[in-house]
C-alpha cells in the first residue's frame, strides 16, 4: 500500500493500477489520479526547484494554479515542458521529469544561489553587469558575457528539437449558452438553460465534472455531493441540447462573445486513436456565457511558507476527498478564515492526524470549534506560523502569538511537530474571463477579494465566481443564471436541490503576511519575497504594473493565480493605502497556458495550401523543379541530368529564341470585367484607354495607385462589347481584384460592372519563338493564325485537339508569341497537344528562369521594378499615361517628389568583367571594396543573356537615362562581387520589336 493513500474514499478507480516513472523511478497510481496525487500517495514531497534560488519545492495546489510542481512530460524524444503535475492525468507508461535542477532534483548545485539572497533581490540585474566603459569589455560585451550564464541558469523546462508528431485541430462552434465550469453552479446553469431549449456547451477544465462537489464532502439532496454531481452530469451528457466538454479550459474571452477553449483530447491516453487530435482548439461564438469558474484559495505569506509539505488547505481537502490521498500523516493548519476547519475534518476522516489549527483570528465561531473538535485538532487562536523546519519536507513548525489588527508578534515561539502544513489565506474568485471581456474588477472589503465587474459583454456569473462561496448559493445562482441566459426567469417555487453543510463565515480576517525573520514567498515560482515587494516600494515601483514588472511577481507560468492578491496587499500596506487604490492588473488571454500546437491547429504542418496549375502534374513528370510564387508552385527550370540552373535556363531561352518555347502562364491573375460600363470602368482604372479597344483585340494596360505610384500591369482582352478579360501579374492578382472591387462599390457604385475572379477558369500556355506560329498552324483547327487573321494583339477562337481555345497574340519574351487559353480541365490536354505538335519543330518547355531571362533582355518590368515605390516615369512607361482622361492616380502622380530628377530610374547594365551579377547588388560611381559607399541604385534582376552572349541586368539607378553609355561599378559587398559595368538602355534585345511583330 502506498504510504499516503487512504484506505478508502476518493473518486479514483482502485481496481486499475497505472504504472509511470518520475525522474526515472517507477511508481504506480490509480486510474483517475493526477501525477501530483499519485506521487503524493507514494510519499513524494519534493517535486521541483524554484526559478531563482533553486529552493526545493513540493505541491502547493491541486489544480491549474500550481506554481511549484512543474514537470516535463516525455513521449519518446518529444518534450512537453512546464506542465503542472497537478493537471497531468496519469496513464500507463507516462514518463515525467523534474526541471530546473542539476545534477538531480535532490542535489541541485544552483541551490547555492540562496546564499546570495539579498544580493540578487528584485531588479538587481538593472544595477550591475554594465561592465567597464573602456577596454575589451566595453559597450555591450561584458553584459553579453554575463548574459550567457544568466540565460543558462534561468529558464525552466527544456523544449526539444524533435518535431511534435501530434495532430491539432480547430473547431468552430455556435451555441446559445456557454457554461464555463461544472461545479454545482455550472451544472445547474447548463441543465436549466438546456431545458428551456437553448443550445448549450458546458466546458470543464478537469476530467471529471462536478467541481467542488467532487471534494467538498458535503451532502446534496441527501446524497454525497460527488454522487449528486455525477448524476446531474450524466443527464447533461445525454441531453440533446447539450455538448459537454471535459478536460477543456476556456482561456480567452474575445470581442463579440467569442470564446476560445482548449480541449485536451488525448493527453491522458497512452496513445491517441486514429485521426484523433491531441488538442482541439474550440472557438465558440455564443449568445450568452455563464461564468461559473469558482474561486481559488490564497496562501498566507510567512517565513518558510515555500517548504515542501506546505500546501493550500483546499488542495489537501481535494487530495483527500477526490483522490484518497493524505497530504501528511500529522497535519497542522494555518488560517485566517473558516475554510481550514472543513479541510481539517476532511483529512481527519481520511485518516490523518490533525496536530493543530493555528488561526490568526482571536475569536472563532462555535461551529468552527465543533469542527475542530470533530477533527481532534487543538486550536491556537490569535496565533501565527513564523517558521517551518525540514529540508525536503516539513518536519515541524513554529508558532507565536499574533495580533491581527497590527500584525504584532509576541511571546515565545512554540514548536509543533507536523509533517504537513496546510494554509488558507481566503479566496479569490476566478474572474479572469470577465476581466478579459473588458471591464475592471471591484474590490470587496468584506470578502477581501476582487469580485467580477459589471459585464461589458454578454455574460452572467454564478456561484463562487460571484463571491457566493456556499453550495446553496451556487445552486440557486447557477439555476437562475442558466434560465436568464436562455431568456427565462427563475421562479420562487423552483424546486432546487438542497445542500447540507456546516455554514462557515466566508469573510477572512484581513491578514496576508506574517512579518518575521526569514524569506516569505509571495510568488513561489519566481521566488519573489515580501522583502522584494517592499524593496520595489522603496525604489518607487509602486503601481501594480511596476510592481509586477520590477519584481516579476505574477509573471510565472501560474500567472500569479496564488500571488497577485498577497503581493498587492503587501504593497498596499507599505503605501498605507487600501488595496484597490494600488490597483489590480487586467487579466489577458490566456487564462492558463495554451499549447502553441492547438492554436496553429490544422495549419501545423500545412501552413498554407498549395495552388497548382492545371498542368502541374505534367511539369512534375517532365522534370521541372519548382519555385514558390505566392501560394503557387511554378516551374523554375526543366533541368536535364547534370545541368546547372544557369545551363538549363540558357538552354531553354536559347531554344525559344531559335525555334520555340512554351511556358505555363495559368497563374496570371484573370478578372472577368463584364457589363455595359465595363469599358468606362477600365478607362478609369488603367492609365491608358480601353474604351477604344476593338472586340477581339487585346491591349497592354498599366495601373497606378491613388497616390500615383505604379501598381500593376498586364494585358486586357476585349471578348465582347461588354465583356473584358483582364490579366494581372501573378503576385498582384488578389490585390488588384480588391482594388477594383473597392472602386466599384465605394467610389463608382453607379457603374454596371461585374468583377469575377476567373484565374482558375482558364489554363494558359504561352508559346513563343520563330516557329511558334508554325506549330500553332499545325494543330489549331477552326481558325487561321496567320498575320491577317491573328495580328499582334489579336484574338481568335479555335480548337486544339478537339478542345475550344482562345488564342491571343502577345509577347512577354519578345518573340512572336501566343497565349493559348482553354478551360482549366482541358489544360493538360491542350498543353500536351501543343508539345506533341511542337516536337518536330524543336519546341521546349521553359520555366520562370528562362522567362525572366527573356524579359530582362527585352527590358520588360515585373514586381522587382514595380516595387511599390516606382512611378510610370521611373520605368519609362510615361507613354502609357493618357492625357485625355483622369484615371486612378492621375491627380497625384505629378507631385514634385515623384518627378524629381534624382529618382531611381530603370536602366540596363552590361557586365564588363564577364562575371555574373546578383539581384540586389548596388551600383556606385566609385568602387571602394573596403568601405562601400555612394550607392546610386541597385540591380533588380540579372541573368546571363544567351541572345547577347554576356551577363546583363536591369537596374534602378539615380538619373537613369542620363547615364546611358556611362560606366559605373557593381558593388555587392554581401556577396563580395565588385566590378565595372556599362549603363545602357533597358531594351537590350530587339528594341524595335521586329521579332514579335514579325
Amino acid at each position: 500500500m502506498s504510504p499516503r493513500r487512504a484506505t478508502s474514499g476518493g473518486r479514483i478507480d482502485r481496481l486499475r493500477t497505472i504504472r509511470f516513472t518520475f525522474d526515472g523511478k517507477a511508481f504506480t497510481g490509480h486510474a483517475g489520479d493526477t501525477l501530483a496525487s499519485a506521487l503524493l500517495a507514494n510519499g513524494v514531497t519534493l517535486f521541483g526547484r524554484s526559478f531563482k534560488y533553486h529552493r526545493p519545492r513540493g505541491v502547493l495546489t491541486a489544480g491549474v494554479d500550481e506554481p511549484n510542481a512543474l514537470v516535463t512530460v516525455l513521449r519518446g524524444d518529444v518534450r512537453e515542458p512546464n506542465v503542472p503535475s497537478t493537471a497531468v492525468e496519469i496513464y500507463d507508461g507516462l514518463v515525467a521529469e523534474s526541471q530546473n535542477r542539476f545534477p538531480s532534483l535532490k542535489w541541485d548545485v544552483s541551490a547555492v544561489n540562496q546564499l546570495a539572497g539579498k544580493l540578487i533581490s528584485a531588479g538587481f540585474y538593472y544595477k550591475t553587469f554594465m561592465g567597464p566603459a573602456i577596454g575589451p569589455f566595453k559597450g555591450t560585451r561584458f553584459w553579453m558575457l554575463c548574459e550567457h550564464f544568466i540565460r543558462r541558469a534561468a529558464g525552466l523546462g527544456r523544449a526539444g528539437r524533435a518535431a511534435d508528431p501530434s495532430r491539432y485541430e480547430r473547431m468552430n462552434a455556435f451555441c446559445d449558452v456557454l457554461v464555463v465550469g461544472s461545479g454545482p453552479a455550472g451544472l445547474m446553469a447548463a441543465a436549466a438553460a438546456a431545458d428551456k431549449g437553448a443550445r448549450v456547451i458546458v466546458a470543464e477544465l478537469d476530467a471529471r465534472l462536478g467541481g467542488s462537489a467532487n471534494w467538498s464532502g458535503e451532502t446534496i439532496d441527501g446524497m454525497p455531493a460527488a454522487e449528486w454531481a455525477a448524476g446531474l452530469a450524466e443527464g447533461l451528457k445525454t441531453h440533446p441540447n447539450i455538448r459537454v466538454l471535459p478536460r477543456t479550459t476556456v482561456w480567452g474571452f474575445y470581442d463579440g462573445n467569442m470564446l476560445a477553449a482548449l480541449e485536451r483530447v488525448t493527453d491522458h491516453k497512452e496513445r491517441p486513436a486514429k485521426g484523433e487530435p491531441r488538442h482541439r482548439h474550440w472557438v465558440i461564438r455564443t449568445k450568452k456565457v455563464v461564468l461559473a469558474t469558482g474561486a481559488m484559495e490564497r496562501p498566507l505569506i510567512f517565513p518558510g511558507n515555500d517548504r515542501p509539505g506546505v500546501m493550500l488547505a483546499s488542495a489537501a481537502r481535494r487530495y483527500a476527498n477526490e483522490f484518497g490521498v493524505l497530504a501528511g500523516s500529522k497535519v497542522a493548519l494555518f488560517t485566517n478564515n473558516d475554510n481550514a476547519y472543513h479541510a481539517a475534518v476532511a483529512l481527519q476522516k481520511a485518516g490523518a492526524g490533525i496536530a493543530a489549527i493555528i488561526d490568526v483570528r482571536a475569536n472563532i465561531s462555535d461551529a468552527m470549534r465543533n469542527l475542530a473538535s470533530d477533527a481532534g485538532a487543538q486550536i491556537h487562536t490569535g496565533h501565527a506560523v513564523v517558521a517551518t523546519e525540514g529540508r525536503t519536507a516539513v518536519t515541524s513548525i513554529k508558532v507565536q502569538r499574533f495580533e491581527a489588527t497590527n500584525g504584532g508578534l509576541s511571546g515565545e515561539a512554540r514548536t509543533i511537530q507536523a509533517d504537513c502544513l496546510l494554509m488558507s489565506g481566503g479566496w479569490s474568485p476566478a474572474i479572469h474571463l470577465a476581466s478579459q471581456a473588458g471591464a475592471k474588477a471591484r474590490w470587496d472589503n468584506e470578502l477581501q477579494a476582487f469580485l467580477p465587474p459589471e459585464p461589458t459583454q454578454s455574460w452572467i456569473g454564478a456561484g463562487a465566481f460571484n463571491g457566493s462561496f456556499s453550495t446553496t448559493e451556487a445552486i440557486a445562482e447557477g439555476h437562475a443564471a442558466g434560465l436568464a441566459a436562455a431568456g427565462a426567469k427563475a421562479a420562487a417555487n423552483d424546486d432546487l436541490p438542497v445542500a447540507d453543510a456546516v455554514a462557515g463565515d466566508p469573510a477572512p480576517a484581513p491578514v496576508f503576511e506574517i512579518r518575521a525573520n526569514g524569506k516569505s514567498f509571495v510568488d513561489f515560482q519566481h521566488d519573489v519575497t515580501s522583502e522584494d515587494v517592499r524593496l520595489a516600494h522603496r525604489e518607487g515601483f509602486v503601481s501594480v504594473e511596476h510592481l509586477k514588472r520590477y519584481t516579476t511577481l505574477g509573471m510565472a507560468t501560474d500567472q500569479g493565480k496564488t500571488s497577485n492578491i498577497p503581493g498587492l496587499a503587501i504593497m498596499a500596506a507599505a503605501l498605507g493605502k487600501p488595496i484597490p487604490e494600488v490597483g489590480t492588473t487586467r487579466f489577458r488571454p490566456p487564462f492558463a497556458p495554451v499549447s502553441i500546437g492547438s492554436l496553429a491547429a490544422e495549419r501545423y504542418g500545412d501552413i498554407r495550401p498549395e495552388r497548382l496549375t492545371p498542368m502541374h502534374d505534367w511539369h512534375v513528370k517532365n522534370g521541372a523543379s519548382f519555385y514558390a510564387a505566392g501560394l503557387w508552385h511554378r516551374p523554375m527550370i526543366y533541368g536535364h541530368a547534370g545541368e546547372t540552373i544557369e545551363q538549363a535556363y540558357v538552354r531553354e531561352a536559347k531554344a525559344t529564341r531559335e525555334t520555340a518555347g512554351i511556358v505555363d502562364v495559368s497563374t496570371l491573375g484573370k478578372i472577368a470585367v463584364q457589363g455595359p460600363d465595363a469599358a468606362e470602368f477600365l478607362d478609369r482604372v488603367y492609365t491608358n484607354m480601353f474604351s477604344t479597344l476593338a472586340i477581339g483585340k487585346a491591349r497592354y494596360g498599366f495601373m497606378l495607385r491613388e497616390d500615383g505610384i505604379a501598381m500593376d500591369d498586364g494585358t486586357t482582352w476585349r471578348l465582347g462589347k461588354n465583356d473584358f478579360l483582364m490579366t494581372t501579374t501573378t503576385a498582384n492578382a488578389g490585390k488588384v481584384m480588391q482594388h477594383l472591387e473597392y472602386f466599384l462599390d465605394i467610389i463608382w457604385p453607379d457603374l454596371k460592372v461585374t468583377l469575377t475572379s476567373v484565374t482558375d477558369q482558364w489554363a494558359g500556355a504561352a508559346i513563343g519563338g520563330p516557329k511558334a506560329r508554325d506549330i500553332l498552324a499545325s494543330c489549331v483547327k477552326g481558325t487561321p493564325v496567320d498575320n491577317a487573321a491573328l495580328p499582334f494583339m489579336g484574338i481568335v477562337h479555335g480548337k486544339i485537339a478537339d478542345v475550344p481555345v482562345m488564342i491571343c497574340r502577345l509577347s512577354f519574351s519578345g518573340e512572336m508569341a501566343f497565349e493559348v487559353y482553354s478551360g482549366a480541365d482541358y489544360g493538360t490536354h491542350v498543353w500536351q497537344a501543343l508539345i506533341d505538335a511542337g516536337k518536330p519543330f524543336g519546341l521546349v518547355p521553359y520555366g520562370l528562369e528562362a522567362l525572366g531571362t527573356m524579359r530582362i533582355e527585352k527590358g520588360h518590368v515585373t514586381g522587382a521594378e514595380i516595387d511599390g515605390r516606382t512611378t510610370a516615369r521611373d520605368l519609362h512607361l510615361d507613354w502609357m499615361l493618357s492625357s485625355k482622361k483622369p484615371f486612378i492616380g492621375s491627380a497625384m502622380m505629378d507631385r514634385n517628389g515623384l518627378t524629381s530628377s534624382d529618382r531611381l530610374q530603370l536602366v540596363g547594365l552590361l557586365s564588363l568583367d564577364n562575371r555574373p551579377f546578383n539581384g540586389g547588388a548596388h551600383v556606385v560611381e566609385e568602387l571602394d571594396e573596403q568601405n562601400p559607399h555612394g550607392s546610386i541604385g541597385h540591380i533588380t534582376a540579372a541573368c546571363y543573356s544567351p541572345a547577347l552572349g554576356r551577363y546583363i541586368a536591369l537596374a534602378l539607378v539615380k538619373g537613369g537615362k542620363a547615364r546611358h553609355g556611362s560606366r559605373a561599378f557593381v558593388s555587392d559587398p554581401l556577396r563580395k562581387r565588385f566590378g565595372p559595368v556599362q549603363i545602357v538602355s533597358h531594351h537590350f534585345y530587339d528594341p524595335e520589336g521586329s521579332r514579335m511583330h514579325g
Partner: protein
Amino acid sequence: MAERLSPLEPVLRPGSRGQFENGVGVVLSEIAPGSIIQLAAWPGQEKAIIAAIKKVTGLALPDGAGGGVANGQKAAFGFAPAKFIVVDEAESISEALTKAVSPEVGTVTDLSHGRTAIRISGAKAAWVLAKFFAIDFSLVAFPVGAGRSTVHHDIFAQIQRSAPDQFDVYVFRSFARSFWHALCRASEEVGYEVR
C-alpha cells in the same frame, strides 16, 4: 471532345479510411457537374435573373440572402447580394443563360472549370466542415438548399446544403487538391469513405 481532367484525379482514391471500423462518419466525393455558372443582377434586376434561372433550369429560387434549391441534377443558390450560382449536370447551360440574361439585366460568367465541387455527406459532415469554416452548420441557421460564401484561410468556398446531412463545397480549382487533402485528414477521426 476530350475528357475533362479534374485536379482531384490523381488523389481521389475510393475506399474507406481513418477510424472507419465502426462505420464511416462521412462520405467524400467529387460531383464534377458539367456547368457552374455565376449570374449577377444589376440593382433592381434580381427578380429578372431569378426568372431567367427558372426559365433555363426550371429551378425556383426562394427569396432571401443565401436562399437556394437543389434537386440532384441541378442546383442554384445566392452567394452574394444579387449574385447566384447555378449548377447543372449538363455542360453548356452557360449559353442558354447568356441568352436569357440581357446586358440590361445582368451578367453571366462561366466558372465550370474554375471551381471544383466536393460533396461531403453523412452524420458527421457538419462536424468535419466546422473544423474549417466558421459558420453555423445547424439546420436552423443553415437550412437545406441554402448557400453560404465563406473562407478557410486562403481557400475561398461556396457551400450549399443539398440535403440535411449533405454539403456541396465549391472551391477554386487551383486549391482543390490541397483542400481535398485537408478534408480527408480532418475526416480520419470519424472514419470516411471516398466515392
